[in-house]
């Protein structure tokens, strides 16, 4: 598919560096955790999780995201997707733990919405650098309990999501869904591995995407050789055993880069 034309209908300032862009397309079949390739014409095309069936939530980090931040309502960008494998949807009544760090909340908020819609009980550990950087707290709160951690202690527990996680009884949950900076996910992974609950945990990974459709191989992870763009971005904890998670990633040339 060629990129669809998405016109921005509304922009929400979620935090100083994070904005949600609502567009005039609805990806009705979207599974929470799936992503779209966002084409900022003349600049670059980058992957973004869908934060709703008609929105992406973007942190400004570099060239493409900065250009995106220059766009106004009525402007447009290209969209291909939704692509990849999302989080496994909960069944009615299951107990869910969501662990979201920073902009990692973007693909997890629709997961909380979906879980809530089937009457799952959802607890969320929401981490960010500071109170200002917390996003989608209300959406998670609408689905259940929210435990907040901030690096600077400006809200909730001072410290990391793992500080909260280590105090919870993870055995109580049927599913655990994780997305955030890789360092955070690696700590969570080790903790859940120790507690022997990896088989019920899912992690949404980030790697450098070129094709985004599972052909080029740029996003493959060691040692499984699985493609983050097509076999993921959401992987079960078991799939990530003995993987590169938290150790290295690859840059656009395919060179390994330490994390």
């Amino acid at each position, binding site marked *: *598919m060629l990129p669809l034309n998405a016109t921005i209908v509304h922009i929400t300032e979620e935090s100083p560096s994070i904005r949600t862009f609502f567009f005039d397309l609805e990806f009705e079949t979207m599974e929470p955790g799936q992503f779209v390739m966002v084409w900022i014409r003349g600049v670059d*095309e980058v992957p973004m999780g869908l934060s709703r069936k008609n929105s992406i939530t973007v942190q400004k980090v570099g060239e493409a995201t900065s250009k995106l931040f220059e766009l106004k309502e009525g402007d447009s960008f290209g969209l291909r997707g939704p692509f990849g494998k999302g989080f496994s949807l909960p069944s009615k009544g299951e107990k869910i733990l969501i662990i979201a760090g920073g902009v990692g909340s973007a693909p997890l908020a629709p997961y909380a919405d979906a879980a809530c819609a089937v009457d799952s009980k959802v607890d969320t550990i929401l981490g960010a650098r500071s109170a200002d950087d917390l996003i989608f707290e209300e959406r998670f709160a609408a689905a259940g309990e929210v435990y907040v951690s901030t690096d600077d202690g400006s809200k909730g527990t001072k410290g990391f999501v793992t500080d909260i996680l280590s105090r919870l009884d993870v055995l109580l949950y049927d599913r655990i869904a994780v997305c955030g900076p890789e360092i955070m996910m690696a700590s969570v992974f080790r903790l859940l591995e120790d507690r022997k609950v990896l088989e019920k945990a899912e992690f949404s990974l980030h790697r450098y995407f070129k*094709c985004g459709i599972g052909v080029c191989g740029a996003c493959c992870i060691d040692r499984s050789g699985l493609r983050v763009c097509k076999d993921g971005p959401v992987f079960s904890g078991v799939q990530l055993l003995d993987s590169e998670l938290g150790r290295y990633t690859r840059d656009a040339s395919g*060179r390994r880069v330490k994390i």
Partner: protein
Amino acid sequence: MYTLTGLELKNPTILAAGILGTTGASLCRVACEGGAGAVVTKSIGPMPKTGHPNPSMVRLECGFLNAMGLPNPSYPGFLQELEIAKKDSGVPVIASIFGGTAAEFTEVAEGLLPGKPDAFELNVSCPHAEGYGAAVGTNPCLVEAITAAVKDVVNVPVWVKLSPNVSDITCIGTAAESGGADAVVAINTLKGMAIDIESGYPVLGNRSGGLSGKAVKPVAVKCVYDLYTALEIPIIGVGGVSSWQDAVEMMMAGASAVQIGSAVYDRVDIFSEISTGIEAFLQRKGYSNVKRLIGLSHEMV
């Protein structure tokens, strides 16, 4: 099992260059889970390259367009991946290499030799190669010189991958043969382009790129057919193969084996699916082995 330029292949389906070939683990997966008879790495060059800006590949109504821009970590960076592929894939691993000059080609080939690739595939056909205005692969003298230079420094088979973007592909194939190539691989992508009409922007980050997939199969079959008439060395057919029927067609045109690229989009185990399909076809037709298919259409007059 059958032999192709001295390599033992358990089946005639080979992973094409630049597809799922960035990491050793990915190559192993294509061989083990996917069932490929051999795998070709992504094309490796003398210097690290990040490639073109995205979008670098899009799916069209018919086929795919890509302009990756030969991203690669250069041969020193790729050695460890090659070693993993060699250790765990269980199939021949062919190193695809590129350069702008014969010297660059030999530098890369020699640089990868410690990884013990089973063969080299010379990508002289990338439409985005620098150095000589047009791609190296449109110039028969250069192709012959590069082939000969690489043959000189390696003691494994050398395959030469040809571009269809020429007036006469047999002329380039003949040059490769004269340079000592053990096989030619045809075809690389066709020059192509798509434009986003809402904005007027070309869709690919590089503006234009290469067409692959179903759209190019008839072109690839014709190239293989013509090369079969012109060359003595084996031809490996690539371009739009996505079913066992396509593979049989390519072999009847003259291909000794097929490579599969874009069709991994549908499923990674396309290789076992196709090789099973070919086996069943041979059985139904009562053909003793796959070699019976090679060039069969040339006899039907």
